[in-house]
């Protein structure tokens, strides 16, 4: 467990003894006759952003859904901080501190930013001691402003309905929502898809903020430019296997593309 470097698919020079925040070992998953994942290892450390890239059908989404509890793997084990855990539902995953921001964001357009951030876990106060529990809007608004400030998210007003925000702002709100739950790991599914230049910058900035906060972040993306901008490592998936891992600072988009498409066959390690 402690000796990560023994992992055949990882070529990162890890500090010996450092335990990954979230680690998946030897994960396989098949749907009927289709082998979506075969013997995949994956790990992400505190304060690290890992980019998960690969062509359509490479198994990125299946892998992330395994982490988020949407799928249960056929074989393999998952551990958090070195402790083996069982994730059989999204609730398990949330309870263990893994938060997922899906592409559809799951925001209520008709509610304002505060209401969305606190949905399902609202703060209360009692009108008279013991009964009449009502929403504590002041508390929620204050905490919302704090969180958005620490994440450096800029929006016109926390009381504006989410429908009136830009795509980038909505993405940031969706991420901030998970942060309120004090997660250890944040999984982002295509966070910059369909965003403009300025909005993409806003979201990438947010990802770096999460990293600064010591969270382990996994980003699925098709956009290599964005991946290179925020990640520390890039994990390349192809045909259900993890075929290559790059140190972002020591590689080029061309090499990553090569790995994604299978052009760099001589370098495949697995």
């Amino acid at each position: 467990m402690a000796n990560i470097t023994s992992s055949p698919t990882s070529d990162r020079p890890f500090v010996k003894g450092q335990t990954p925040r979230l680690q998946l070992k030897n994960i396989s998953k098949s749907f009927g006759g289709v082998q979506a994942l075969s013997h995949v290892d994956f790990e992400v450390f505190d304060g690290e952003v890992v980019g998960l890239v690969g062509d359509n059908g490479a198994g990125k989404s299946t892998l992330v859904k395994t982490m988020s509890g949407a799928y249960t793997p056929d074989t393999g084990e998952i551990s958090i901080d070195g402790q083996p855990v069982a994730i059989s539902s999204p609730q398990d995953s949330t309870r263990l501190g893994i938060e997922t921001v899906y592409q559809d964001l799951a925001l209520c357009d008709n509610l304002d930013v505060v209401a969305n951030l606190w949905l399902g876990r609202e703060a209360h106060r009692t009108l008279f001691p013991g009964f009449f529990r009502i929403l504590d809007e002041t508390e929620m608004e204050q905490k919302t402003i704090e969180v958005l400030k620490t994440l450096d998210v800029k929006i016109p007003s926390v009381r504006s309905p989410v429908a009136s925000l830009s795509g980038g702002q909505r993405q940031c709100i969706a991420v901030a929502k998970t942060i309120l739950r004090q997660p250890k790991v944040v999984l982002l599914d295509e966070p910059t898809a369909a965003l403009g230049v300025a909005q993409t910058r806003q979201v990438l900035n947010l990802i770096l903020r999460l990293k600064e906060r010591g969270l382990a972040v996994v980003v699925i993306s098709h956009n290599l430019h964005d991946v290179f901008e925020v990640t520390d490592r890039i994990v390349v998936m192809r045909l259900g296997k993890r075929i290559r891992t790059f140190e972002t600072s020591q590689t080029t988009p061309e090499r990553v593309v090569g790995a994604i498409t299978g052009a760099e066959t001589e370098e495949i390690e697995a």
Partner: protein
Amino acid sequence: MKSLEPNLTPHSPNPADAAIVPQPAAKFNLRSLMQGDLGFIPVILTLALITIYFQITTSGVFLEARNLSNLTQQIVTIAILSVAAVLVLLLGEIDLSLAAVAYACSAIMATVSVYQGWNAGWAILAALVAGALIGLINGFFVAVLRVPSFIVTLAGSIGYAGLLLVVMGAQTTLVVRDPFIRALAPTYLPAGWGWGLPLLCLGLYALGVWYDQKRRSQANLPVKHPTQLVLQLLGATAVVVVLIFLFQSYQGVPQAVMIALGLVVIAWLILRKTTFGRHLYAVGGNAEAARRAGINVVQMKLIVFMSASMLAALAGVMMTSRSTAVATQISSTLLLNAIAAAVIGGVSLFGGKGSVWAVILGALVIGSLDNGLDLLNQDQGVKNMVQGGVLLLAVTADAVVRRAGFAKGKK
């Protein structure tokens, strides 16, 4: 809630100078009024136009205290039924069985009162329990079996109309003798209650607003401009005082009107101030997001359909009290008027948008048209055409506003 992530909050002593540009006093202008508690201005203007038109064409009869007192009592049933419609509409569903439920439940009340000799309290309770059961049936099909509410409640409306006939047996009308039930709607409150209750509510409202402002400013959050607050409170007070003066100059504040207003206020408090209300709006806005946030959507729908049917039963009780009898012939316009009142007041047919106060404005618009056209001796055909037109306008406005909102929201 107290322990927000420790590593997130270390360097934020003053949250207000944060990502959001602080506005010590929010700007006070027409726009803020429209977005705030006075977002009903278009409907109020419509109502004003209708009033002016009828005031002129009836040469002053329309705004007489007697007629206004009448008008408000005429819309009590629609208003209560419309509160029920609002709850269901906010969820993004619809309940087409409300009118049939109102009739069927009031028939149950009348039957046990007249033939079984139950006293008024038990008879009314029987109606409410019947309403709850019917709501449970509707809710079960909609929430658990996921049949579209349109179909479920359409089928329900036929079925409950049948139940009405079964309960009524051979007779077409059943006159209620119970003095308490008969007195529910036509009673006027004594002056002390008529003045005291609304003014007490206003006082509590003012206190609540003041306390809220105090907490917000202590928390360093932007507060509303004092002028706006004072205007808001003065406006509300003025409306209430003028209304009570009008009522008192005739026979007093009608008890039925007070009951309907009380229901609106309670519904408003639940929707705006409680977690249940917040979750109801969330389910109406995006059911999937609500589900992922841990909200029990099925339970929410069951509760809402049950509440709606119970409110419908209550509307039926008030209706019976006003007409002193239950009929087997269900009013053809009651259901649509109730839904129309909600929509005219700005409750979206697509869920998640609108306030329960819409009910009062919407019911007033519909009631004014009905009452005014009656004063002008117009026949039912003309009334139906006018009301149909107004409903169409309201729904069109809803659809157009929604489209505009989406265009704005996407970019």
